[in-house]
Every structure is written in C-alpha cells, then in structure tokens.
C-alpha cells in the first residue's frame, strides 16, 4: 500500500463491522483507485461481500449492524451523520450477485432510477435508456423489445440489464457482488468483457469467488480472510508472487 490515499476514489480506514455479536470486519484499511478494477477475493464468509456493501451503506438496511471506522468516497466520510446515504448511492451504484430486475418492462427497469430522480422529458429518457443499455452491451439484443418484461430475459441478459439500470443513474463507482456467479461461461465472459470496457469510465470494486476472473479483470486484488485483509497488491503480484503464505495457498487452490 505504498500509493498515497489521494489517488484513491474510495478508501477505508480501520473499518470494523459487527453483525450482532459477530465481528465480521476487523479493521479494514483499503484503497480503491479511480478508473481501476479492485477485486476482493477470499473464502466464503470472509467478509468481502459485507465490506462491499458497506461502501455504499447498503448494510444500513440490515438490523443489528454496527459500524466503526470510516469509509471515504472522494475524501468524504460517508458514515458521517451529515452525509446522505441516498445521494451516496446515486454516486456509488451496486450490482448484486443474483440479477434482480424489477417485474417491469426492460425500458421501465432502466428508466426507473432517472424517473424517480426527476427526469420527465421523454426524449431525454429514451436517449438515456439507450446509452445505458449500449454501455451495458445489451442494446443490440433488446432494442426491438424494450416493452418486453425483463423477467423474460436470460440470466446473463438480466444481469447486464441490471448493470444498465445502475448506469442510468450515472454513478461514478460500481460495486459488483459476484456479478457472474450464477451465470454460464459464455454469459460470464460477456460480463467480464463489459467490466473491462466500463473501467475507462467508472471505478469498479468487484467481489468474486472465481480466481481466474479476478486475475482477468482486476488491476488490484485484496485477499480477505476471517474479516481481515491478509494481502492487498497489484493483481499480478498477488497471483504470481504473494508475500503471505495464506494468500499463496488460496490462489493456488489449496484451500477455500
């Protein structure tokens, strides 16, 4: 962690999270650099998803969660009581593990956020929907059936639709919680390609189970274990010459 914090779009300082009596995050300090992909890897239950969800305060919606320490987005402490979590989430979007389109049409799914945020102009809305779907690399597949129910799409398409829906709110950071874990290899490849495209415009933090995926898409990788970050470095180094024995064991598939 030799880089200075001011290159980081997001960074955390000694972040502790208690879920009831469980100490789920034990003092995480991590930088996530702008226009880079940071991958969070580790065995299940290690706290990587919990960490991701605390970056846009999605854990606020869960009972019994206690957070200490701080998370900075553009150097603003998002857990400060004067920061609005609703505004934060417009800036820091999230893609979930299981694709979760609303039971509405494709168009209405993408237009949902902008509409609520006050965009009424039909032409602008059309344009925004198209741009978002294009950026999510799904426009060509759905452009003729925008009125069709989103639930009729395949799993991979649904996930890209969810990405388009998040993009339509024009965030700056995208948090992805195992976005391809429920998808087949072809759909997964498309999502990975898309992530590669998106990082030119967005800062991306991705949780993944899949080591190859982390190696393929990310610039930096953090290895989580039992609620702590064991090692954080450029992805290449994590996968080729990890400093910690635990990291090496994990990335070479000896446990987890």
């Amino acid at each position: 962690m030799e880089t200075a914090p001011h290159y980081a779009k997001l960074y955390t300082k000694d972040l502790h999270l208690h879920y009831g009596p469980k100490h789920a995050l034990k003092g995480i300090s991590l930088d996530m650099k702008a226009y880079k992909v940071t991958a969070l890897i580790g065995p299940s239950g290690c706290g990587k998803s919990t960490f991701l969800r605390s970056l846009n305060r999605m854990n606020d919606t869960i009972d019994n969660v206690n957070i200490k320490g701080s998370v900075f987005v553009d150097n603003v402490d998002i857990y400060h009581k004067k920061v609005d979590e609703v505004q934060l989430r417009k800036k820091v979007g999230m893609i979930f593990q299981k694709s979760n389109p609303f039971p509405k049409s494709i168009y209405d799914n993408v237009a949902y956020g902008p509409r609520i945020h006050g965009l009424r102009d039909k032409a602008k809305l059309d344009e925004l929907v198209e741009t978002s779907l294009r950026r999510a690399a799904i426009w060509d597949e759905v452009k003729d059936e925008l009125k069709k129910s989103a639930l009729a799409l395949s799993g991979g398409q649904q996930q890209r639709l969810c990405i388009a829906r998040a993009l339509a709110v024009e965030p700056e950071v995208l948090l992805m919680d195992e976005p391809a874990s429920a998808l087949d290899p072809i759909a997964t490849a498309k999502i990975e390609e898309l992530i590669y495209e998106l990082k030119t415009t967005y800062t991306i933090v991705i949780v993944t189970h899949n080591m190859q995926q982390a190696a393929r898409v990310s610039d930096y990788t953090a290895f989580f274990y039992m609620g702590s970050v064991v090692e954080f470095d450029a992805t290449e180094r994590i996968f080729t010459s990890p400093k910690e024995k635990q990291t090496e064991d994990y990335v070479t598939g000896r446990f987890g």
Partner: protein
Amino acid sequence: MRILPVPAQPDQGTPPTVNPQSTPPVPPPSLPVRKVLTMKKPFRAGEYAIEKFIQSVAIISLVLIGLIFVFVFREAYPLFTGKVLAAAPQAQVEEAETYGVDPGAPDIVEAPELEQNQENFKPSSLVGPSWQPVSLDPKFGLWSLLAGSLKVTLIALLIAGPVGIFAALYTSNFAPKWAREGMKPAIEILAGFPSVVVGFFALVIMASLLQNIFGFQYRLNAFVGGVAMALAVVPIVYTVSEDALNAVPKVMMEASLALGATRWETALFVILPSATPGIFAAMILGFGRAFGETMIVLMATGNAALLTASLTDPVRTLSATIGAEMAEVVFGDTHYRVLFFVGALLFMISFSLNAVAEFFVRNRLMKKFKGA
C-alpha cells in the same frame, strides 16, 4: 398519490467538504467528479412526514386496545361509585332507547321500579347465583352466567382439543400429500363459516339429532352449544398446533428415526412433547374463542340462566347475555351498566389469555429450539 419531489441536486459549484487530513482527489481532467458528495444531508420533508404518518396509523392498533378497555369500562364504572342514576338523564329514559331492534315488541321499560333499586347498587351484588335483571327485585348475580360460559367452553374444548391436535399430528406426520393439501382448505372453510351459520345449523339440525340420540330433556342446552362451539374452535386449535408441530426441527425427528423408533413413536413421544408449549397456546386461544363467542351460544344453548351441575341443562353464557339483553335495556340504568361490566370482564379475560398464549409461544418455544 403523487411522486415525491426529488431533492435538489447538490450545487456543482460548492467544493466538496474534504477530509482535512488528505489532499483533494485528482481525477483525470477528461472525467471530472460528476456528483459531489456534500456534508449537507437534505431534509426530505415528504419522506419524514410519510414516515410519521405511517407510524401514527400503526399506533392506532395500540391505542385501540386502550380505548376499548376505557370505553367498555367507562360505562360500567358508575356501578362501583354507586351513582348509577346520575348517568341516566330522564329524557333518555323516556325515549326508551331500544336500539331500533324489534319495534313491534313491547318495550321493557320498567323505569319506575328500576330507579328505586339503582340508588343503592352494591358491587357485591354482582357476586351471587341468580341473574334476574328484569324483575321487581332485580338480581345481578353473575355465577350462573359464568358457569354457563365455563360449561360450554369446557365441552367445546374437550371435543375440539383432541380433534384439532390429533388432526394436526396426522397432517404433519402421517398424512399422504393429497390429504395434507386437502385439509388446509377444509379447515379454512370451517374457520370461515359465519358463527350465525354454525348457530343456525346447531339450532335446526344438531339439537334435534343430539336430543334423539341422548334423550335430553331440553332440546337446546349446554351440550348442544358446546358441540356447536367445537366446530368454531377446531380451526384455531388445529392451525396453531400444526404450526407448533411443524416448528419442531427436522433433525429431532431424524435422530429418533435413526435410533430405530417408528414413525408413530417418533410423532407421539418426540414431536408431540416438543410442541407442547405451542399446543398449550392453541388450547388457550381456543378457550378464548369459545368463551367470548356470542352468536352460537345465543342460538344453541337455550339461554336460561340456571346454576346447575348438569351439562345437559340449558345455560346462558356471559357473552350471550350481553347479546340478548343489551337491545332491551334502558340506557344508562343498572342493567345496562352491569352488561358493560360483563363486557369488561370478557375483555380482560381475552386479554390475559392472549398474553399467556403469546408468552408460551414466543418465549418457551424459542428457548427450546434456539437455546437462546
């Protein structure tokens, strides 16, 4: 409802509030920070108002419990201060509030007689065997009514308890899938029968049938009422028991089966005992239902306020007394107030029963299975 106004976007001109320890971020010039996080949390008046509104509406249920207690007890309260007459203005007595029912029937307005007795009402006269509210010397002893309620409730529980519990045991442990699936709607239909329909059925069909079988002296009596009441109680006992039985962890059943116990031994000696608190709660709720039910007993028990030991004599229950007599009382007189007192009694009983049931289901069951 309209869509809430969207809070204004933060002013692009104001610089971000910066963590003092570090320098501002340096984004690539082509891709500026588009949304500035401010330290000014907007106050969303609409959001706040809606939350408060929803909360206040939700509190209605809570307030209602208090109101019910207050307003039922308020009408009975003068009994305990001895100022019964004061609450009955002369004008209203003359108007003879009969609650619009039965305009053809003779108004039972024995105001002059009643007035004389109202002045020295003693709460202790509620404790007594005879209930003769409309007579020259009115008696308001509640024992016969209480005994009537208990008789009917007891009979109903003696029938509905075993039937409901064993039926639940059957569907949760032994029944083939089709029987289980068929049982649910049947029970829901039974629970959905209006109590007047059950009362009508008891009055017209069951009473004669039971009289022919057992040779009762009176066609309508506590037993007929109790059997009819059982029909209304079975769904409660069944539903709550089944929930309790299904809440027993599968591992307990599997452990028992793995030790070589048969299916029925497991059901009777492992699952049933584990579900005891829930089944107890089921019986308590059944008791509450039977004790307070009005229309069935009003139609099927014969409605004579007798204090006897026999289960086959006609009885009049607390609830039926209110149902039958409230329409005929003089507004604000002793009889009126005693009926409200009976209502307050029913309220307190159902309240306590529910509290006990809740305690048993929540605390005991949870402790048992979750080890908390």
